[in-house]
């Protein structure tokens, strides 16, 4: 980067990551674009882009992907690279919809057409290009959230427009739209409910044990031991005591506590969430500069005032970072709740695994990943915003 002696040599024109993206995109052109199955069970027939999209749309798609691949090779301005990747992804999205539409016989409701290897490779190639451009642009927190919203709106537009309505995943969705939204609500309730409970318990617990060194060691040791227990094992271990509780205390059964179902899942997620909240509260309080405490005492603040007006505001970025960790972790772990009848997106994942129906797995996995990813982007941006504010 330091030598400018040969400004036109290939080293300065060709982007190294671009070579990888180019290779993936070109390889994708030689792979089937969609997979057609006459019904849910039979083996699929691969269709290449030119077969699935006869006439000019097929050639246009190939030309657009080829141009995008070549542009990815070049060292261009990151903004231009981002625009290229979004344009390619948009063309691929519409092309997929048209390909599925033209492959599906008119009026047919039982065939299933899914994206094939070629589409996935193009998605990977231009997704990488987009991610790399965003990283190189070094966007500010608010711009990252704005970009997330823009991408979400674009995806929602595609879904609502009906271009993809014949896609196999969306046919699975159409068959169980009510169940989908019910499980979505359960999933979010499990992840958020356990987070709120963990914050309400973990924050005071962290503050209470902060001054006592021995108590801190015991509590954090216990909580980190809980964290190492695999999720399905912890769900399983909680079934027995909760079943006993429901059997012996009528009031517990009346509010819906049972051995199997949402109660053990909620309790397990709560236990997993406690450790990050408590340990980050402790770390945040530890990081309060002694001078700030001395100054607060000097101003005549009581201990309670000092906690609320000095210590907690200074520890807030660290506590928010814990909320980020817990939320992303809980959204992922809540999928396992389906195994003990707790509901959530895991229902589709495990049903799909049981029926070897990839579309059903995707119907559960894609929203879970999207939720976790969006929460991570938003809360990372929030943590950065409050940390910057705290410093100035």
């Amino acid at each position, binding site marked *: 980067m330091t030598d400018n002696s040969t400004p036109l040599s290939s080293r300065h024109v060709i*982007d*190294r*990551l671009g070579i990888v993206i180019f290779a993936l995109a070109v390889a994708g052109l030689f792979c089937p674009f969609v997979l057609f199955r006459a019904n849910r069970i039979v083996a699929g027939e691969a269709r290449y882009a030119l077969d699935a999209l006869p006439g000019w749309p097929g050639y246009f798609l190939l030309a657009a992907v080829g141009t995008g691949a070549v542009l990815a090779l070049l060292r261009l301005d990151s903004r231009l690279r981002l625009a290229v990747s979004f344009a390619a992804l948009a063309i691929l999205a519409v092309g997929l919809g048209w390909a599925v539409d033209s492959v599906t016989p008119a009026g047919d409701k039982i065939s299933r057409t899914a994206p094939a290897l070629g589409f996935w490779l193009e998605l990977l190639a231009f997704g*990488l290009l987009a*991610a*790399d451009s965003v*990283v*190189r642009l070094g966007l500010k927190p608010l711009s990252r959230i704005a970009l997330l919203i823009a991408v979400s709106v674009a995806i929602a537009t595609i879904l609502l427009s009906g271009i993809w309505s014949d896609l196999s995943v969306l046919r699975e969705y159409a068959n169980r739209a009510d169940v989908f939204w019910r499980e979505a609500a359960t999933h979010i309730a499990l992840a958020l409910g356990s987070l709120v409970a963990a914050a309400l318990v973990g924050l005071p617990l962290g503050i209470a044990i902060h001054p006592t060194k021995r108590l801190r060691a015991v509590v954090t040791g216990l909580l980190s*031991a809980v964290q*190492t*227990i*695999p*999720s*399905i*094992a*912890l769900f*399983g*271990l909680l*079934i*027995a005591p909760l*079943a006993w509780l429901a059997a012996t205390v009528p009031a517990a059964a009346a509010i819906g506590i049972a*051995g*199997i179902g949402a109660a053990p899942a909620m309790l397990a997620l709560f236990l997993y969430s406690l450790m990050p909240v408590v340990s980050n509260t402790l770390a945040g309080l530890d990081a309060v500069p002694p001078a700030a405490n001395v100054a607060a005492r000097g101003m005549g603040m009581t201990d309670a005032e000092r906690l609320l007006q000095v210590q907690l505001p200074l520890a807030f970025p660290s506590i928010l970072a814990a909320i980020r960790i817990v939320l*992303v972790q809980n*959204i*992922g*772990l809540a*999928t*396992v709740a389906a*195994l*003990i009848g707790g509901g959530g997106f*895991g229902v589709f*994942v*495990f049903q*799909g*695994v049981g029926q*070897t129906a*990839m579309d059903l*797995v*995707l119907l*559960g*996995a894609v929203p*879970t*990943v999207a939720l*976790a*990813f969006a*929460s*991570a982007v938003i809360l990372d941006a929030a943590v950065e915003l409050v940390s910057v504010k705290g410093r100035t």
Partner: protein
Amino acid sequence: MKIGALSRLAVLILLGVFLARPDWFGWLFTPLTRNGQAAIYTQNSLLNLTLNHLAIVAAATLAGSIVAIGLAVLVTRPAGREFLPLSRTLANAGQTFPPVAVLALAVPVLGFGAAPTLLALFLYGLLPIFENALAGLASVSPDVQEAARGTGMTDGQRLLRVELPLALPTILAGIRISAIISMGTATIGSTVAASTLGETIIAGLINSNLAFVAQGALVVGALAIIVNTSLFAIERHFSRYRRDQR
């Protein structure tokens, strides 16, 4: 630490006895059964399931460590610098993927059995090791690098004798995190017919036999805690070693 080591040994011995002679503990699990259900899972020996479980986790963690450390070394060399920012972001974003989703999506590619579980464990386990290896390699101060260069070390010598040893404690922490996540994911691997300890839990859930659920969960939980504390002890040993060397 003495008490910690002793209780770890006690858990290990208890686990060993339970795995060798599960029938001795039948009375403990009978209260959890209903209508004369079996108290101890006998479809498959608990010892075999445990060994299988550990073998899958060990294989995936070993493969993951080799690939992840190799990649981290590559992107921190001058030739791979261009990949560094993206790979850091991908490792971070990849960890928002739930391990269950990775596992379920591996099934169409590899079918049922141990193979999809191994692939999911390997892919997902890469990320924490890679992230920690990057952090460890980045934390080697430029002064140390300069001093190593001054003593006439080649790039390869510097990597093997200076950078990797200094990054070792952080890398080991990544391996520990990866192994613990893999212990849990391997348990869920039973839903795709991998023969792991999750088998007892799933069997218990299907037959609503809480005794099976409890013994599977207890063995996995004890195993996870033993693996975690042992790897943590190794990690502490090396960071202490590193401090003493200074």
